[in-house]
């Protein structure tokens, strides 16, 4: 095959992908493959992939804040923590059914989003980053010091949920739970991105003043992004709590927030397929290179920074990411 025909195959493929209809087919096939994986995979692989789907949800949630609305959030783990602790406390200390705690977790993380977002979203982005960083740490330290959250040792013995009489306890169960949640997260992200609200986020990200001159409530629109992002975190946290059956403050450190942010940035902010790839890279890389021992984190760090810097060079200094 000559090189020219080779490239035409690629461009044909790209053109073919441009059609929404064809894209749907690709997505369906990918979802079907993801559904079949548990039939062939062992427990280890299943566990790693479950984790990858879990990070996909978190990264997609943060992507709404960072990618769509262009707000740098360094304390995203806080929302994840609020969701996890809400479910953990309600089930283990009050004996409430897990499924009923989900709305409560969503509500609490939304309130947390409003509390932190309301006063700070008037600030320009660099200040916001610092405030969110502080907020993330505050939530963790509160969880560490309150009695109801179990202090430094956290909550243990969170009950496994049942689903139509089946107790969700095995790896395969949670694989499907997180896969379905990740698909739902993609769907919601996609719909939001291509809506009036999604465009408003993009306008504000591109030029705040011009967006305001077009009648867009800058602060209101950002708060919307923040609260929706918080909800994603809350739901993910809720399911995380019952999957692990134990949570401790050390799960929700600043490093966790940075890791989620890394997933968003790695794959390309604002793009759903990119964010999924980023989340998978985040989880798979340390596993694949387990043989290198502790060296693997160094390799991971180097490859992350090199991919980030090539990304910056590709889009040119000072240019903004396209959505």
């Amino acid at each position: 095959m000559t090189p020219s025909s080779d490239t035409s195959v690629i461009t044909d493929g790209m053109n073919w992908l441009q059609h929404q209809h064809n894209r749907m087919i690709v997505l369906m096939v990918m979802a079907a493959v993801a559904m079949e994986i548990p039939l062939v995979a062992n427990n280890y692989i299943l566990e790693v992939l479950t984790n990858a789907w879990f990070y996909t949800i978190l990264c997609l949630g943060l992507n709404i804040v960072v990618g769509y609305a262009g707000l740098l959030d360094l304390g995203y783990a806080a929302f994840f923590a609020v969701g996890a602790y809400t479910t953990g406390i309600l089930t283990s200390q009050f004996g409430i059914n897990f499924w009923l705690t989900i709305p409560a977790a969503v509500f609490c993380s939304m309130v947390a989003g409003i509390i932190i977002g309301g006063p700070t979203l008037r600030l320009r982005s660099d200040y916001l980053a610092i405030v969110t960083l502080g907020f993330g740490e505050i939530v963790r330290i509160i969880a560490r010091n309150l009695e109801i959250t179990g202090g430094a040792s956290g909550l243990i013995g969170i009950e496994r949920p049942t689903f139509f009489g089946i107790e969700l306890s095995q790896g395969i169960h949670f694989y499907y739970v997180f896969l379905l949640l990740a698909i739902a997260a993609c769907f919601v992200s996609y719909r939001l991105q291509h809506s009036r609200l999604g465009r408003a986020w993009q306008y504000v990200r591109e030029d705040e003043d011009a967006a305001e001159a077009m009648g867009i409530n800058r602060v209101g629109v950002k708060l919307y992004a923040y609260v929706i992002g918080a909800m994603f975190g809350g739901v993910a946290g809720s399911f995380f709590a019952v999957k692990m059956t134990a949570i401790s403050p050390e799960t929700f450190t600043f490093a966790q927030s940075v890791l989620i942010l890394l997933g968003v940035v790695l794959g390309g902010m604002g793009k759903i397929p990119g964010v999924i790839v980023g989340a998978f890279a985040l989880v798979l890389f340390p596993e694949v290179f387990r043989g290198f021992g502790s060296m693997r984190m160094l390799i991971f760090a180097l490859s992350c920074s090199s991919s980030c810097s090539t990304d910056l060079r590709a889009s040119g200094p000072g240019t903004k990411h396209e959505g």
Partner: protein
Amino acid sequence: MALLEVEDLVLRFSGLEVIRELGFTVEQGTIASLIGPNGAGKTSVFNCLTGFYRPDAGRIYFNGHSIIRKKPHTITQAGMARTFQNLRLFKSMTVMENVMSGMHCRTSAGALGAVFQTPAQRREEELIRRVSEECLAFVGLLEKKTRHAGNLPYGDQRRVEWARALATKPKLLLLDEPAAGLNHDEKLELIELILHIRNELGITILLIEHDMGLVMKVSEKITVIDYGKKIAEGTAVEVQNNPKVIEAYLGSEDEEEFL
């Protein structure tokens, strides 16, 4: 009653008075201009009107309501749209998406509507697209709607800004130096467009301009400011023959002698 009334407007930047007790009115359905030498405070006046600056004193009434110290987005919603002196397009987005931003304040679908694509949300999206296409057709850019705004030639980018402002369905359109950077032919087209907007859409226009020829041709009332103060007001002929205006633009004879 005038559509826009400005009374005793004062704006200070750390003690320096940029606008000094400025007062003027814009009547419904007219084309009015605000002119003055460089640094006279014209753009500052625009920024006060549209809520980007907070004036230190004075009153602004738009359509009978006080809009002083209101946020820019509420002022746009009340029916005042603006263009910027330096183009402020959403460069990496398409022309169509840029214009669709104007309809934001005339629609209301939220997150739930977007996720579930309710019938109301679909109708609204349809409406946003239709109005945006009408606005693009009005400025003659419909065939470029899928292009990225940042890749268009300068004159076309200006038109996108106009279409975007029109999509907010304004009562009053504020144009900040619309002729800047345009060549002779483009200026003639611009005059056409300004008259078109007023005559066909019935939108009142207030413009800031350096290009005297353009101002004299289109405006029915001209307010001249210098050092933030109003020095003259009237029709093109009246203003042109006003000694104070001539002095502001060309300098007084006394100053000439020093040179």
